[in-house]
């Protein structure tokens, strides 16, 4: 986005957040995860009783806390991105706060996996847990990549060129983090809440 467009953006013209490449990646990921979601329901239909009893083994408080962590981190990232664009105060601290939430998610997930393994529940227990570990594991990898992206955003958002040449990269990184958030929203609903 050039300076002229940035100057007139308060007049609310339509504009592409980030750049084309990140949207190709986002829609690619959305497509793959949509197949994951559908795979889950397909297997669930074959063994509804196994899926309902297995779900009771999951800790809903952990799932809920992680959802709140990601929603809150998304809020921090959204506000930080707007502050970078408008030259607002300390966007880097907001990216740092988002990272703290992201780390909170990883720590809780580690506890959750650990408790399951300790209770003798693993990939081979049944189809529910096989899908649970694979899909939430792939999502966890996204969170870890997202944390690396947020580290970069924290670093560059404090630089003088952040609102000009750096903005497109900051927007792309922010979009990726929101993607990580919204994928978890559906995973949480399917694995923890569907009765």
């Amino acid at each position, binding site marked *: 986005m050039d300076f002229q467009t940035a100057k007139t953006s308060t007049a609310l013209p339509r504009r592409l957040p980030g750049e084309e490449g990140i949207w190709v990646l986002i829609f690619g990921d959305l497509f793959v995860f949509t197949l994951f979601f559908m795979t889950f329901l397909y297997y669930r239909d074959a063994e509804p009783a196994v899926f309902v009893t297995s779900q009771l083994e999951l800790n809903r408080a952990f799932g809920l806390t992680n959802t709140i962590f990601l929603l809150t981190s998304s809020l921090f990232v959204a506000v930080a991105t707007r502050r970078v664009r408008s030259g607002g105060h300390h966007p880097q601290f907001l990216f740092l706060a988002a990272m703290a939430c992201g780390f909170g998610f990883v720590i809780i997930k580690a506890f959750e996996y650990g408790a399951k393994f300790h209770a003798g529940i693993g990939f081979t227990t049944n189809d529910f847990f096989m899908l649970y570990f694979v899909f939430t594991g792939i999502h966890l990898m996204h969170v870890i990549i997202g944390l690396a992206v947020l580290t970069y955003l924290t670093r560059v958002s404090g630089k003088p060129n952040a609102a000009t040449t750096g903005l497109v990269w900051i927007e792309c990184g922010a979009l990726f983090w929101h993607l990580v958030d919204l994928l978890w929203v*559906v995973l949480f609903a399917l694995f923890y809440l569907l009765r």
Partner: protein
Amino acid sequence: MSMENVEYRLLALWAVLVAITLASLESIHAKGWFHDQRFQGAVVIILAFVKVRLIMLDFMEIRRAPMPLRIAVDVWVTVACGGLIGLLFNIF
């Protein structure tokens, strides 16, 4: 819109997202509401996609994005949500 207003709107959206999360959690306990358990599933899936759409519209700024992108997002939300509910009710 001033920067403060933008931030308050984002904070309000976050509160809505948390409220929807808690509402969908409550649906688990509201057994009497659903004579068919699959309707609870449909409610949970629809609430999840309402949250997803709000995240995309306002956190990801799709509301102000070029129309083709906005349409693509709404098509994905509709197809994914509809597809999952279809699978839930075994209509495929």
